[in-house]
């Protein structure tokens, strides 16, 4: 477990909600922000604010250094080969849409296949649905094992020589499953397909090495890893990004502009039309510094431990069903569950009245909910600031909910 001095870095944590100390168990939706990140954004606006890449003046240089410095931090964080492979986007959704609209439009044709899985988040389903519709391509889903994991046999059965794109989430936002991206990438490449990874739930929690994974694209969001909302990253292999057309056109991304023809800047700027998300990138850079000070290996260990503890404690609650892998080592810090016939919304309201914040609903994964044969679930998700005491508070709240709804029944 991480030293709980860490909590002191998160000003939001120390407050009461409905008369109880806050227990925040919704980090898979968005994480809380350490003071370091809040200060970095504030410092940028108070001292360095200016537009980037154009100012001859000092503030312009400082803003550019901050923004481009953040790119270097991201490159190092995911071990990309070069900084040109790091494109700043608004978030994971924008990054995946960029791949679908640019790479997808140019490389997927009628009868070609796009392969995803049943556990994907809507943001890794709909861009491919739209692409498949526009091109007359086939969208195929890899089925899941009973425990919510992927089997490589089924991956091999689904991917064929007609497959142009395989897109899989690294860590499931519902099941917590950590998927074997490296192995799936090998299979995709053997059929000549590119591998896209939705890393929104992985980058905050486990060490990501895009060279070792050998994936072609990797997308993630800043706000789930202590950074601000509105900033995300698309990593892409240089050779692919070089051949791709931008999807947004305007200022910042151009080289020469004529009356009827224009040319694009070099990588990565040709994909960053308009004034970029400067403060967001600087905030993300500060979040990366913060996570690296703690160490991703420690964070991963902490979350495995919390997930194991939560699953053990929660399984003692009568009538509680936990979805996803039974082995805590096979999952990140996400535990999705239902409590007998208490609807997850009712459960979330009872927990909130006791200061415990969980998510209830379909978690932007309607096909997965259908696969699980439930209309909704409750989800507790952990991050570096959570403790075993938080889990105990959750379990206490579950008992209260159970008793309450039994009484009124």
């Amino acid at each position, binding site marked *: 477990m991480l030293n709980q001095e860490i909590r002191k870095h998160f000003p939001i944590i120390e407050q009461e909600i*409905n*008369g*109880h100390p806050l227990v925040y168990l919704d980090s898979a939706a968005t994480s809380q922000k350490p003071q370091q990140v809040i200060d970095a954004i504030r410092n940028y606006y108070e001292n360095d604010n200016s537009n980037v890449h154009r100012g001859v003046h000092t503030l312009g240089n400082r803003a550019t250094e901050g923004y481009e410095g953040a790119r270097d931090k991201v490159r190092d964080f995911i071990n990309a080969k070069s900084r040109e492979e790091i494109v700043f986007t608004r978030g994971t959704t924008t990054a995946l849409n960029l791949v679908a609209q640019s790479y997808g439009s140019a490389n997927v044709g009628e009868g070609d296949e796009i392969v995803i899985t049943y556990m994907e988040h809507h943001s890794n389903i709909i861009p491919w649905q739209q692409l498949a519709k526009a091109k007359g391509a086939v969208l195929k889903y890899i089925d899941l094992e009973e425990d919510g994991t992927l089997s490589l046999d089924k991956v091999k059965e689904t991917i064929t020589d007609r497959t142009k794109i395989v897109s899989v989430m690294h860590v499931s936002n519902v099941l917590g499953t950590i998927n074997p991206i490296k192995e799936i990438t090998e299979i995709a490449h053997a059929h000549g397909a590119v591998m896209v990874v939705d890393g929104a739930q992985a980058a905050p929690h486990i060490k990501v090495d895009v060279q070792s994974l050998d994936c072609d694209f990797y997308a993630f969001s800043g706000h789930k890893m202590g950074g601000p909302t509105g900033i995300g990253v698309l990593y892409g292999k240089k050779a692919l990004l070089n051949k791709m057309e931008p999807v947004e056109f305007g200022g910042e991304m151009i080289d020469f502009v004529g009356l009827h023809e224009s040319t694009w800047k070099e990588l990565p700027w040709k994909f960053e039309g308009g004034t970029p998300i400067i403060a967001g990138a600087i905030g993300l850079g500060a979040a990366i510094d913060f996570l690296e000070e703690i160490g991703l290996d420690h964070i991963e260990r902490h979350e495995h431990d919390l997930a194991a503890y939560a699953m053990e404690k929660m399984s003692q609650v009568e009538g509680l069903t936990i979805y996803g892998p039974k082995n805590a080592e096979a999952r990140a810090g996400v535990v999705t569950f239902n409590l007998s016939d208490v*609807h*997850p*919304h*009712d459960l979330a*309201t*009872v927990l*909130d*009245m*006791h200061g415990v914040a969980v998510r*209830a*609903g*379909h978690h932007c994964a*309607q096909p997965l*909910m259908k696969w699980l044969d439930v*209309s*909704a679930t409750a989800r507790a998700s952990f991050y570096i600031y959570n403790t075993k005491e938080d889990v105990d508070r959750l379990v*206490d*709240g579950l008992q*209260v909910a159970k008793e*309450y709804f039994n009484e*009124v*029944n």
Partner: protein
Amino acid sequence: MKSTKNLDQLYRSVIMDHYKTPRNKGVIEKSSVTVDMNNPTCGDVIHLTMIVEDDIVQDAKFEGEGCSISMASASMMTQMIKGKSVEDALKLAQTISEIMLGNEYDKSIDLGDVEALSGVAKFPARIKCATLAWKAMEKGVGPDSE
């Protein structure tokens, strides 16, 4: 930890009674009005069938999936509108909206069991649960229906 006083404002016994023993659950085969509506943020769904003749709601049934508030509200809604004119049914839906928004509303309207939903106004995250069935009814018989 054991205090449930606040919860009692939301989960009034009338609501739990409608949730556990829903009225008018089912489908009217020969309905004149059919509405499907969902709440995309949480996954609640309702399938509402009604018979409307001479501007009177002769019958109404619902099927659906959702939390106690949304299902209880659907049960209450069907109970309340049966036998009412379309105009009165819509007026009732409007009143529910006003209550949820914390606005003034016409106190002369007999709310029956529906009055129990007034506690939902204090739980902003749950207002959409309470209004789903009413929105479905409005969609089916309101001025924008076909």
